[in-house]
């Protein structure tokens, strides 16, 4: 008999006023008992609606059935059939709009905690099972993958499994992309990412760091001179957008990319043990309402800021961040200044930001995105004392590749145009997926695109 309790097993976590002073993981994960109890809430529906909500079609009811019987390794292997990075997805996927949004239990009560179960299974495997990775038999064909974020890693893993000799090129000194530079340690421990990458290397994937495709090596050279049969571009959306308002070049104004890269990739939170500093003042304004904004705000708090504000031009309902991140941010003392939009930054004589002017907004008619358009309320300007600003209003793809690759079609946002089902681009043997195609989106969508492209590349090269 299924467990018909209405609510999800709560996730054990560090107390908010403790965790907002450290960079250890916020949530500590289910115990075996909690996992089995939560698994029993799954009705094992015949038509598996949850799977339709998953961009990589994890066999959700099947893996949960393994948990019910205590076969956690069986559950892990079931997830692994379709998802290369379960420990990552269990932590950062927006389950509430994906798998869990389709769960039948969610109609009347809480849906099954699918994400929490996925994470439990992945962590259990890492802690208890020694990875035995076999190198697949080489098929004699070579594929280059550009970018080592979630999309590139997924494509690389799927191709390596099929026997391709895969080289991943990464511009930074460490592989992992946004999983390393963007998402903070307290939400996704870096050891987990590096373990997944080590597994790929054990499978034979070659990872070349410090290589900037479009600068160090061109896409055409990969195909024409270096003998790659296909290229997969998963270079992400790395170019930060700025507001374009007065005072944005003042000291103390960061892009979220710079702020988070200093903290996460360069370990600025351990300065001066690590050489890279990160300045955080007393009053921090983070502009934007997505996951990146939540990460920046919560990081600023942990680095000692007294007041941290999320400044977002729409309302709470419209915040694009995962529900859990918003909730965690509120618990940690982040103040949400909703329906407000910055209009200028005011600096002191030394060029440091000291104040920010905002204008209050109200919601008008729905816009193209279906969300109600924020409209400024005339005369509602207000000045806030602010000494650090993190601009987190979005990223677009880096132009290095599109500028150096002839015949690669891109759209007006600078995204590479690629077929959704296969990742095929306008250039022969060149595939693309993830944020470089969609614009900034989620880890799991990028993984789904990497997976689809790996399949299409395999199909093309096997013909």
């Amino acid at each position: 008999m299924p467990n018909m309790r209405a609510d999800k097993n709560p996730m054990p976590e560090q107390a908010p006023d403790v965790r907002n002073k450290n960079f250890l993981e916020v949530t500590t994960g289910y115990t075996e008992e909690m996992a089995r109890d939560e698994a029993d809430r799954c009705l094992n529906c015949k038509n598996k609606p949850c799977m339709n909500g998953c961009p990589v079609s994890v066999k959700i009811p099947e893996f949960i059935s393994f948990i019910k019987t205590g076969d956690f390794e069986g559950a892990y292997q079931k997830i692994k059939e379709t998802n290369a990075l379960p420990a990552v997805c269990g932590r950062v996927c927006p389950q509430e709009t994906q798998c869990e949004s389709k769960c039948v239990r969610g109609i009347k009560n809480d849906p099954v905690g699918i994400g929490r179960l996925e994470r439990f299974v992945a962590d259990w495997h890492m802690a208890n099972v020694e990875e035995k990775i076999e190198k697949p038999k080489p098929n004699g064909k070579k594929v280059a993958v550009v970018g080592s974020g979630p999309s590139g890693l997924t494509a690389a893993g799927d191709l390596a499994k099929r026997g391709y000799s895969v080289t991943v090129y990464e511009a930074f000194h460490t592989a992992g992309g946004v999983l390393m530079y963007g998402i903070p340690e307290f939400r996704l421990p870096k050891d987990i990412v590096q373990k997944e990458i080590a597994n790929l290397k054990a499978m034979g994937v070659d990872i070349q760091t410090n290589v900037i495709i479009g600068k160090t090596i061109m896409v055409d050279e990969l195909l024409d001179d270096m003998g790659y049969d296909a290229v997969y571009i998963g270079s992400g959306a790395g170019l930060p957008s700025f507001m374009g308002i007065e005072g944005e070049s003042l000291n103390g104004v960061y892009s979220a990319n710079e702020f988070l890269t200093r903290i996460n990739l360069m370990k600025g939170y351990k300065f001066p043990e690590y050489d890279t500093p990160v300045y955080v003042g007393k009053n921090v304004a983070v502009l934007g309402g997505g996951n990146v904004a939540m990460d920046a705000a919560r990081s600023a708090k942990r680095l000692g800021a007294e007041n941290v504000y999320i400044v977002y031009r729409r309302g709470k309902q419209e915040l694009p961040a995962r529900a859990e991140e918003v909730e965690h941010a509120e618990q940690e003392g982040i103040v949400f200044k909703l329906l407000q939009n910055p209009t200028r930054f005011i600096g002191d004589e030394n060029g440091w930001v000291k104040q920010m002017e905002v204008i209050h907004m109200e919601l008008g008619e729905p816009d193209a995105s279906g969300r109600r358009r924020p409209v400024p309320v005339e005369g509602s300007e207000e000045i806030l004392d602010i000494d650090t600003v993190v601009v987190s209003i979005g990223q677009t793809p880096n132009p290095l590749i599109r500028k150096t690759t002839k015949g690669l079609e891109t759209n007006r946002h600078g995204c590479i145009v690629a077929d959704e089902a296969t990742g095929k681009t306008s250039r022969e043997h060149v595939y693309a997926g993830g944020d470089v195609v969609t614009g900034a989106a989620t880890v799991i969508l990028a993984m789904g695109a990497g997976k689809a492209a790996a399949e299409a590349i395999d199909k093309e090269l096997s013909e």
Partner: protein
Amino acid sequence: MAYKIVRKEVLNPQIFLMEVEAPLVARKAEPGQFIILRIDEYGERVPFTVADFDREKGTVTIIVQIVGKTTRDLAQVEEGEYLLDFAGPLGMPTPLEGIKKVAVIGGGLGTAIAYPQAKKLHNLGADVTVITGFRDKSLIILEDELKAVSDKLIITTDDGSNGVKGFVTERLQELIDAGEKFDEVIAIGPLIMMKNVCKVTEPYGIKTTVSMNPVMIDGTGMCGGCRIIVGGETKFACVDGPDFDGHKIDWDSAMKRGRMFREYEQRSCDEGHCRIGRSNNNA
């Protein structure tokens, strides 16, 4: 993968040269471009302009002035040892084709960066005047190298200890006053020097290209830390530059941004991870 230092030479008490084995970077490097290096796991990512390259040997040369934590640590890494990371080439090459008569101006360490520009212009057949300035005679670098690639070489010192006293701007003004007609001036050095060179050339409408070297992390357009206001627009030095039209730069903002992490630099020097006395066995 690490990057071997095949040659290290001390040029003056504060400036040294490192020739680094980095074949992929050497293959593509052009004057005006830069690399980003990290000494070890604890290190910052710091940009250095390409001072020279040898495509056949697969090496890239950088010239470093000891100014802060990373450069101080870098001075401790010896020939035969390795740097953990060395990525590039980054930024746009300086467009040098078509220039007929040029003044290349280097201030202090900027001289090292001016050298590959002068060399390429010379090889392209341009008439090259090089003006470089140093605080005093003991700090003069690359004299022979510059002599070999210039039609006229003027070395000036702040204290006159080499026999020529004054700033590069004064020497440039003298040449202009004497009727020299430059189609372009390329200035590389401290911000204040480049700003002042622009002040000299502006009344004559001489195109003046400067090389900016702001704080950055990735060097590929990702962090936006290197933003500079050029002609009222925000540009990223790493991908749009590092060279810009000096007459359009907002120098005041650039100088203030250059001071953003100054206090941290001092703390890093005083309390940071100490590399002195430890060999760099990154290999």
